[in-house]
């Protein structure tokens, strides 16, 4: 916790003088810590001369920011129209059943956090998913199983 606070303070010092600093700062925090912890709001509000309510308001407005520690991997399933036209609903149902979680939840072993996403810009190759920072196109339930299985192996190894 003490280390995290030091890291947070460094990030605030780095970003606080940018015009419209809050979003770039929140991105930097999430990139570094994996999420934007609620305990960081007080420091952010002091650094940027905002109220804690304003910080909370911004964090909660944007889908990208999360206030809980995610699993080791983040799996996003595209729910938008193009992917629906190519069977994304079956893909959603399949993965929820396999992982035994719903959207915005993390598997019991902290391996995977499942999130919906609305368009990954890969619509000529729907249906799409994003695993951490990588997009995969034309994904079938079998492909998805293989990707997830690979993760589990990594975890065991």
């Amino acid at each position: 916790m003490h280390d995290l606070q030091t890291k947070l303070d460094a990030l605030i010092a780095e970003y606080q003088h940018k015009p419209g600093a809050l979003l770039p700062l929140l991105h930097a925090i999430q990139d570094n810590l994996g999420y934007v912890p609620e305990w960081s709001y007080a420091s952010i509000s002091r650094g940027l001369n905002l109220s804690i309510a304003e910080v909370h308001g911004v964090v909660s407005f944007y889908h990208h920011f999360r206030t809980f520690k995610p699993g080791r991997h983040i799996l996003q399933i595209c729910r938008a129209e193009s992917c629906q036209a190519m069977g994304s609903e079956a893909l959603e149902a399949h993965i929820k059943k396999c992982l035994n979680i719903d959207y915005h939840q993390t598997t019991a072993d902290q391996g995977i956090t499942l999130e919906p996403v609305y368009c990954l810009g890969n619509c000529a190759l729907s249906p799409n998913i994003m695993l951490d920072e990588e997009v995969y196109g034309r994904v079938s339930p079998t492909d998805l199983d293989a990707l997830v299985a690979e993760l589990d192996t990594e975890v065991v190894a």
Partner: protein
Amino acid sequence: MSYKIYIPRDSSALSMGAEKVAAAIQAEANLRNFDVEIIRNGSRGLYWLETLVEVATDKGRMAYGPVKIKDVTGLFDADFLNAKPHPLFLGLTDEIEWLKKQQRLTFARVGITDPISLDDYLAHDGYKGLRNALNMVGTDIVKTVTDSGLRGRGGAAFPTGIKWKTVLEAGAKSHIGLGCVAETKYVVCNADEGDSGTYSDRMIMEGDPFVLIEGMTIAGIAVGATQGYIYLRSEYPHALITLNAAIEAANKTGYLGENILGSSKTFHLEVRRAAGAYVCGEETSMLESLEGKRGLVRFKPPLPAIEGLFGKPTVVNNVISLASVPIILDKGAQYYADYGMGRSRGTLPIQLAGNIKHGGLVELAFGVTLRELLYDYGGGSYSGKPIRAVQVGGPLGAFLPESQFDTPLDYEEFSKIWAVLGHGGIVAFDDTVDMAKMARYAFEFCAIESCGKCTPCRIGSTRGAEVVDKIIAGKDTVKNIQLIRDLSDTMLNGSLCALGGMTPYPVLSALNHFPEDFNSQTIVKVAA
């Protein structure tokens, strides 16, 4: 001798394994002692052929695709480095019919050059537009853009030149009585490409980022703005990398920063990451977000051109609008305006998506019909079943039935049939689609993404989804369909921005054109 191989770094190509294919080709070349230079280009936009591997020959670039890792050994065995036959051989890339018939102006370099090589950009007509602009006064640059007929490619189709003129003059007024104190102005590029079925912005940013940087620099010089921001969706990590690399290269070589090319003009550029809110594609919501706030839509007026980012005059344009500016300044307004039909001048980068066999980027002059795009280019549905509906223009665009497929792509022709072109994305659905579910999804999406500022959008979207659920369940269908129409009327006329104001487009078009999916045998009148 050294062989030159092109393998895209575009994220759609990566989604089909381009990174692994590139590594496998390099490894196999090393094993066989071939000296190869692999260039990571943008995508040509023939996405069903990704990973598309090209080999440079004295006749031109030869294509192979779709290449998977398992094909690599076979390609070497067949001597693909010398363009020898192989089942994946496609011939000269430029001669592929799908590509050859296109009119690529904005996408002239995408897939051809190394996106982060400034030398490559310069060797392919890059920065000619800016050089011309630097010898012109602001009003003349604005006039050129106005005369080209370019309209906002983000969806609203507002004439770009007129927007620029407002910003240019907004500054001029403040000069009166203030000596030569220049007012701060901004150029903001809306790269929050959130519409499903669209990816042309991403292709430009990953495949030819310099053209966007050049377009923004020209905009800055035209209106007197010295700072630009690109508001980029967080879902595009690869675009962030290419944009930042290109901006760095431009800064180092005097194409960005102070004293651009010795002209004493200044333009700084920075990429800002969005954070997954669809509504931030609406320009005023985006400005709030750039200021570090919740992305709540602002009332208009004042227009962003007068009071935009941090209250200053601001040009807000979409990626494609800005990326179309360099060629207009290079080849002249007339050159661009000669393409197109009616009041829709120039070309539109169209994106084929959804249930389509040959999905990808088709840049053509306005006037091409949906049918040509869906069948001549798209090759029909991916599933092989009949295409029952298409949604044009993203989640706020209308669904069109087969009877409307002969409509030419033109802003005015589309508004005549109560549809929109939007950002040029076309999502095809085969006959398994349930249009009542699509109407429900439109409301659901609006509810998820509503900024919450106005009631018709915030409450209407949730109530709409509930009412469609009742219709799907067969409860009081006639009464509830009427209720949907009343609610849509409120949202259309009472919402603050296009999110609530256009959600009725997909809802009512689904209801009007596909009433049989709504437990309703009644033939309903098409809304005017």
